[in-house]
């Protein structure tokens, strides 16, 4: 009991700090980033920097928990004025429910990645520091600092600096292994992200030119007082949205994401896919729901939702065609980003369900995707490759890792009781409730396509020719496997979270009934009949996919490997579809074509926003 008091009392004191509490998550990673280059040496068996980072991450988790507790129990957003200067002159920090969720999510995922990476990025015995270890740990801190600043900042320019901190930290992580392909992927990412930043900054400049403030609360007050949006604000909203879309890699601006996320080392891929793209998405939410609430015209919402639906269908279909596991997962991220943008067409009349579903998708996808990328990393390390066709038999080598991969996959598909299931139920309910049934259909089809590529992977794992070595080249560490499994279980069990916790979404947001929306949507959503209703289409898909597997012909001439493979009927369909889709994807990901899409989107958004002005 003493021990419990020892732990609880400081935590309670922490939550009583009020706004000052927000300085901790803002500054903790920054201090870590600054101290990291000084921590050279061979203490702790070469793991000094890693352990130091882990310690900070634990402290960060405690701070994030404290923020979430304070926000939830206080039922109002925490605010802090840096330097004691009030906006518009000074800069404010604010943690509403959304910030608290994002802070907590990033603390959990980065902590898991930190545990996973201990082994991979420790300093070998013959050195006091290596390139990979210093770069990885420092930039992990940098990403964390950028994320927290983006979640807490209330000033459009501070948010710009936060985004740049995030980009500069994320890009070198992509090229960490130094091969030409990853360097090219990193450069592509950097240049496209910089284009996004500069468009965002231009939008901020126009806001300042119109209202002489960059503070989100003040801007919201002044904009809501306008009879009609001034032209500068219309331009600013379009520029900022498109700039942030480029950084979020929403289809068709996804040119940089697959090579960058697939080429990075697995722990870095996990961070990039789970968190980094979400930061720019979070700022899009801030823009449309906090800076200019009510300015979201139906046309704008339809454009964003249409792109989201396109991302779901296109990303999932292209994922189905990938020969390498990490690229498959990266394309799955392209698709999963799409779900986030379904919020916009749904928010007009079902804001509670849409926002809650969207935030749930952010969390569920982050946990599941981080688990999947790290599981794929363990598979690649153990087998020496990550070709889907050659995964046969690896379940004997890596049972736990594949279990985690599969559990994370269940959340992506949206099977109960996972977070993905809850997301899809909420969004489908909102779609039906607002008379946009086609969005519900897209969600269902997206789930089936996700199931298809996961069946594709597991079909090869379970039924493929056992071509993998009986002993792994590099066996995974026990802690690594467990942390991956923990993340996957987190994603899977997210649906069982007590509904009262969903009240966190609505803190600091008037007129939102998050837990009520959840309760309505979930009434009768758990149950055997419902489960069967969800499962049988998946079984059909599973059969189709198994029919698609290239079953090996009899080994000719005693050769251990099949000489040819024959395609089944569904395999031919898939091949035909592939010849259509892959050139389309390659075409869309050409730099000038993506640029053209960006410009068209910019002008279309400006036109759409002005329809309501």
């Amino acid at each position, binding site marked *: 009991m003493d021990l419990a008091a020892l732990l609880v009392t400081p935590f309670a004191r922490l939550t009583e700090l009020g706004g000052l509490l927000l300085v901790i998550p803002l500054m903790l990673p920054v201090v870590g980033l600054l101290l990291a280059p000084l921590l050279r040496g061979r203490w702790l068996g070469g793991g000094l920097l890693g352990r130091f980072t882990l310690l900070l991450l634990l402290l960060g988790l405690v701070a994030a928990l404290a923020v979430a507790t304070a926000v939830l129990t206080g039922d109002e957003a925490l605010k802090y004025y840096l330097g004691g200067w009030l906006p518009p002159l000074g800069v404010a920090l604010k943690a509403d429910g959304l910030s608290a969720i994002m802070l907590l999510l990033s603390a959990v995922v980065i902590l898991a990645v930190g545990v996973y990476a201990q082994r991979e990025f420790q300093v070998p015995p013959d050195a006091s520091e290596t390139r990979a270890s210093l770069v990885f740990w420092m930039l992990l801190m940098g990403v964390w600092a950028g994320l927290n600043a983006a979640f807490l900042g209330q000033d459009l320019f501070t948010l710009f600096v936060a985004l740049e901190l995030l980009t500069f930290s994320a890009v070198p992580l992509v090229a960490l*292994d130094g091969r030409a392909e990853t360097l090219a992927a990193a450069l592509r990412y950097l*240049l496209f992200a910089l284009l996004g930043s500069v468009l965002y900054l231009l939008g901020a400049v126009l806001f300042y030119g119109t209202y002489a403030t960059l503070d989100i609360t003040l801007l919201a007050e002044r904009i809501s007082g306008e009879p009609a949006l001034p032209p500068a604000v219309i331009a600013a909203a379009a520029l900022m949205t498109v700039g942030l879309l480029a950084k979020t890699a929403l289809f068709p601006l996804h040119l940089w994401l697959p090579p960058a996320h697939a080429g990075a080392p697995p722990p870095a891929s996990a961070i990039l896919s789970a968190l980094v793209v979400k930061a720019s998405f979070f700022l899009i939410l801030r823009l449309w729901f906090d800076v200019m609430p009510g300015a979201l015209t139906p046309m704008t919402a339809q454009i964003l939702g249409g792109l989201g639906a396109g991302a779901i269908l296109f990303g999932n279909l292209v994922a189905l065609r990938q020969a390498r596991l990490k690229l498959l997962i990266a394309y799955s991220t392209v698709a999963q980003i799409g779900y986030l943008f379904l919020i916009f067409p749904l928010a007009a009349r079902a804001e509670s369900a849409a926002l809650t579903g969207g935030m749930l998708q952010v969390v569920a996808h982050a946990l599941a995707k981080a688990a999947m990328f790290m599981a794929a990393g363990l598979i690649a390390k153990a087998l020496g490759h990550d070709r889907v066709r050659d995964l046969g038999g690896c379940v004997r080598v890596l049972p736990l890792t594949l279990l985690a991969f599969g559990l994370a996959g269940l959340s992506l598909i949206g099977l109960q009781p996972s977070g993905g299931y809850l997301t899809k139920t909420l969004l489908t309910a909102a779609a039906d409730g607002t008379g946009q049934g086609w969005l519900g259909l897209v969600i269902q089809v997206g789930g089936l396509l996700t199931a298809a590529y996961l069946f594709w992977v597991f079909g090869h794992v379970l039924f493929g020719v056992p071509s993998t070595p009986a002993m792994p080249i590099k066996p995974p560490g026990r802690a690594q496997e467990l942390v991956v499994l923990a993340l996957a279980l987190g994603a899977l069990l997210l649906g069982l979270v007590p509904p009262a916790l969903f009240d966190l979404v609505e803190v600091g947001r008037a007129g939102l009934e998050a837990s009520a929306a959840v309760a309505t949507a979930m009434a009768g959503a758990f149950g055997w009949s419902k489960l069967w209703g969800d499962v049988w289409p998946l079984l059909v898909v599973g059969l189709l996919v198994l029919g698609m597997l290239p079953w090996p012909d009899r080994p000719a001439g005693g050769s251990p490997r099949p000489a040819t493979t024959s395609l089944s009927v569904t395999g031919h369909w898939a091949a035909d579809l592939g010849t259509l889709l892959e050139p389309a994807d390659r075409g869309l990901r050409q730099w000038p074509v993506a640029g053209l899409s960006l410009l068209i989107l910019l002008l279309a958004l400006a036109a759409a926003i002005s329809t309501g002005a």
Partner: protein
Amino acid sequence: MNDPTLFGLCGAALVGLGLYGLLCQPGALRKILAFNLIGSGVFLLFGVIALRGGGVLAAAGRGIDGDPVPQALIITGLVVAFAATSIAVALLLRLAETSGRTTLENEAPPAPSLPGERASRPDGES
């Protein structure tokens, strides 16, 4: 048309020119240059906004040249742009050294990093 507006239009033109260069120039170095042009167009617009904001006060006899807030932010932005340029240049030079490529077109999907492949890297990755 007063002077700041002239430079404001100049900034708008710079943004358009830079966008064209960033999207149509194949070479990465040219894209970096174009990014800097867009950035400087944006800063110029901000500078114009700063001067307009100050002009009102100067007319009222407060004797301030321009709004200092945008000016401070432009300085911060210039430093950030320099940092961005230096990372891009470092990545590009290394890319050219390792593969002879200086453009971003026709990229092949990267294979994930693998222990076996790493060992064969020319610079002895371990």
